[in-house]
């Protein structure tokens, strides 16, 4: 950047001073940028950091703070071991895993099949359906949780994780279908023609060409489905009141809060453990994660 800015001064020596000030301006811009980013990073990371610090404290240290609460003087893993050996907490984890795995699988089957049909096979009503998918994506879960509560109750699935498996697809399917339509539509038509000439049927075309070629999109959609089912909060809060059927989010929020007994360390440890899976996925697959995030508006 600065190299190309310096070049005109060789040609026009009179411009030298102006270029110099330009370069200084650039440097100030860079310094401002770094200062902003450092401040932002501190603000963004402070809550998780403080949660970590608290989770390493004993209840005694939490209830008698000496000096700054932002550091831990007597670190202990007792909060974590207590949680991990607690069958109720392990149950939350297990419920979250079952629900999330099933929902991700169901979501991907539904949305890949539908996206393939919508992207490649123009049929009666396909345009309307694609718009419908997008509109459903815009329906927030808090708009329909009360009728769904009645419906799930009518199916006798309240207080059961199967009820969650039934309703979570409303959170994940529309967006996953929508971004998969975008990814599939960007695959060149020549590829399907070649496959058709070689005698592939629609199913083979999907499994042998579309899924491998659109794999980044499929990973992004899978991550999205995983994240929303893991983080879902409204539905489990409304549908589940029995601790043994609770997934992590509501389990941690409702069961680990114990009055004023300074169980803060354990509560924070529980929240961090519960937040771990999405954070780990994000750490390893950041690019796919971001691709999925931006795909909603940039693709499709």
């Amino acid at each position, binding site marked *: 950047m600065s190299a190309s800015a310096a070049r005109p001064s060789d040609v026009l020596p009179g411009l030298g001073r102006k270029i110099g000030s330009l370069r200084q301006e650039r440097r100030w811009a860079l310094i401002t940028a770094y200062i902003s980013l450092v401040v932002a990073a501190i603000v963004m990371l402070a809550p998780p950091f403080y949660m970590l610090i608290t989770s390493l404290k004993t209840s005694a240290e939490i209830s008698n703070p000496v000096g700054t609460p932002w550091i831990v003087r007597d670190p202990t893993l007792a909060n974590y071991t207590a949680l991990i050996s607690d069958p109720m907490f392990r149950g939350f984890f297990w419920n979250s895993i079952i629900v999330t795995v099933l929902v991700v699988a169901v979501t991907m089957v539904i949305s890949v099949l539908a996206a393939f049909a919508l992207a490649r096979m123009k049929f009666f009503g396909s345009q309307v359906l694609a718009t419908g998918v997008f509109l459903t994506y815009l329906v927030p879960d808090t708009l329909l949780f009360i009728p769904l509560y009645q419906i799930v109750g009518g199916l006798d699935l309240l207080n059961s994780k199967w009820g969650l498996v039934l309703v979570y697809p409303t959170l994940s399917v529309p967006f996953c279908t929508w971004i998969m339509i975008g990814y599939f539509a960007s695959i060149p038509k020549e590829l399907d023609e070649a496959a058709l000439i070689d005698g592939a049927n629609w199913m083979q075309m999907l499994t042998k060409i579309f899924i491998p070629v659109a794999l980044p999109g499929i990973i992004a959609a899978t991550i999205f489905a995983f994240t929303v089912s893991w983080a879902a909060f409204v539905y489990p809060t409304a549908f589940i009141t029995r601790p043994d059927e609770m997934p992590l989010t509501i389990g941690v929020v409702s069961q680990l809060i114990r009055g004023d007994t300074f169980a803060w360390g354990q509560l924070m440890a529980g929240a961090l453990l519960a937040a771990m899976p999405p*954070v780990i996925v994000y750490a390893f697959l950041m690019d796919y994660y971001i691709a999925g995030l931006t795909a909603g508006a940039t693709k499709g």
Partner: protein
Amino acid sequence: MALDATTALAGGPMTPAGGGTLRRLARRRSTIAFLMTLPLIAVIAGLVAYPAGYAIYLATLNRRMTGFIGLGNFEILLESETFRMVIWQSCFFAVTAVILKALFGFWLASMLHHIPTKGQRIWRGMLLLPWVVPPALSTLGWWWMFDPSYSSINWVLTAIGGPAIPWLGEPWWARVSVILVNVWAGTPFFMIMYLAALKSVPDQLYEAAAIDGATGWQGLRYVTLPMMRNIISITVLFSLIVTFANYDIVRVLTNGGPRDLTHVFASYAFQVGILSGNIPRGAAVSLFMFPILAGIAFFVLRGVTQRNKEMA
């Protein structure tokens, strides 16, 4: 496309002369396509369209769900002081939070865009973290940071000579706290969207503007913003929907208190419908969101269609 040829090529041997119209129908493209979209249609119809209709029906019933009372629930709600507060608080919360998220997001995106590409990854990775943690769980952390007697934020404030703030105890501060947490959690989304948009503005445009003597501010005003207009509006509208319908933060942080003054539509609907057991009235509270959401959705859809046309 060349479907008939395909059938002849691939399915030739399997189609005996009198194969029957049923099998031909099953092999037709639109039939296959319909079968492939059937699960999706089932989800949309059974879990979105049907509940939406059911919600309208529920909202017209009395508390015991035994009698039809028309718009009675809506009238009662509109007459209640608390619910008018909820409307006001929801709008105030959503508009303020979205504006702040958009401004901070844009600021951070342009700062990130400024620094060398090599370093962007690590910063982006750190700044996106609040978006990755499930909001209900990160809000727990904030709740603890706002704790009246052990607030770590107040410790910092008093350390630099500021006052201790009653974060969740006093209505206005409670509102500020809810907005603060929402802005914290939502800014990364804006940052990522705007960064992607900034990267898509061709450098030649800035060079041309610089040659014409544009200052940095003019470059922003006449090059960057017009090029990003569509993404900015889609992101803002989308976030407006999500923020307006937010539940997690209010539930964990204030649970509507103090004195029901921080309730938004979602948390109030939950309170009335599930906790107090007045399902019809809870459904009516949720339905109040519908016209606003539908209005926003209309503009989002228009923005996305426009964008597709531009990109096509």
